[in-house]
């Protein structure tokens, strides 16, 4: 499966599949630029689910209406996707969620040649507002950041 196909699958999963259990993702942008970083995709939504009658009433009274987003970036387009670049990307995500008053966001890194150093960097992230997941398409494996949000990524990503 190519990176583009995988990205489209994650987009589908977020907007019309299992991602809907996490948040109501309604809009997806491609080649999304945020604070000097171009993301391959950005999907945004909120935590207030829409439904029919009772579920709508339930959602409106129980669920908080937090704005959330999911950024996707592939390592293919970047010459050297190392820890330094990861810090830059995370900074761009953090700045964006602050600007747009988002409660939390996910950053999904799609890779065909991820190194152990990059995997360790992702696993060591403890950010409570940005969940990071690194998908290695070659080995068909995924690592995520060490936070509740990071672990939630497994719920909408099928390797």
């Amino acid at each position, binding site marked *: 499966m190519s990176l583009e196909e995988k990205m489209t699958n994650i987009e589908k999963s977020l907007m019309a599949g299992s991602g809907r259990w996490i948040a109501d993702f309604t*809009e997806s*942008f491609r080649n999304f630029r945020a604070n000097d970083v171009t993301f391959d995709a950005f999907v945004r939504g909120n935590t207030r689910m829409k439904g029919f009658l009772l579920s709508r009433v339930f959602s409106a009274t129980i669920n908080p209406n937090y704005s959330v987003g999911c950024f996707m970036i592939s390592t293919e387009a970047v010459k050297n996707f190392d820890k330094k670049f990861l810090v830059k990307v995370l900074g761009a995500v953090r700045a964006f969620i602050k600007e747009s008053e988002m409660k939390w966001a996910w950053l999904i890194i799609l890779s065909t040649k991820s190194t152990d150093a990059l995997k360790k960097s992702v696993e060591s992230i403890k950010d409570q507002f940005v969940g990071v997941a690194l998908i290695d398409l070659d080995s068909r494996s995924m690592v995520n950041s060490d936070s509740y949000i990071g672990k939630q990524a497994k719920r909408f990503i099928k390797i």
Partner: protein
Amino acid sequence: MSQTYAPLQLYNLLKSCMIVFVVQALVYIFLVPIIIDLALRLLILILNVLISVSLGWPLYKRRYHMILTYDNTSFTLKKGVKEEISHKWKEFSRLSLFRTEEGDFSVRLYKDSEFFDLPASKLRLNPFKFRSEVMQLVFPSKDKK
């Protein structure tokens, strides 16, 4: 090369037939409140259904049927016989894939703060492929990255 999409939108066809059906049913309820004969009731129901289908189709074609025509420079979205909207692709600066509350996908084209939706699901297009195609038309010279 110009392309046209005008599939039958079943939901809207059913909606048109239901509108006619409900109007007729209301007329029967108010004008003929007590019809005891079961055969007559059935006859009225069959007549109601037949009229709903025969009037629902023209109503659908007149008000709801959507036709999308586009080429490399512009597109025209026609809804029914009255509503026709045309735009040039280059008028738009941003686009996204949008999912409505009903679960339908549209390609949303942004012009400054305004936007225009191309209803991909209603036109029975694969929204993800259609979005890619529209991206090529809106940003013809831009690289992916």
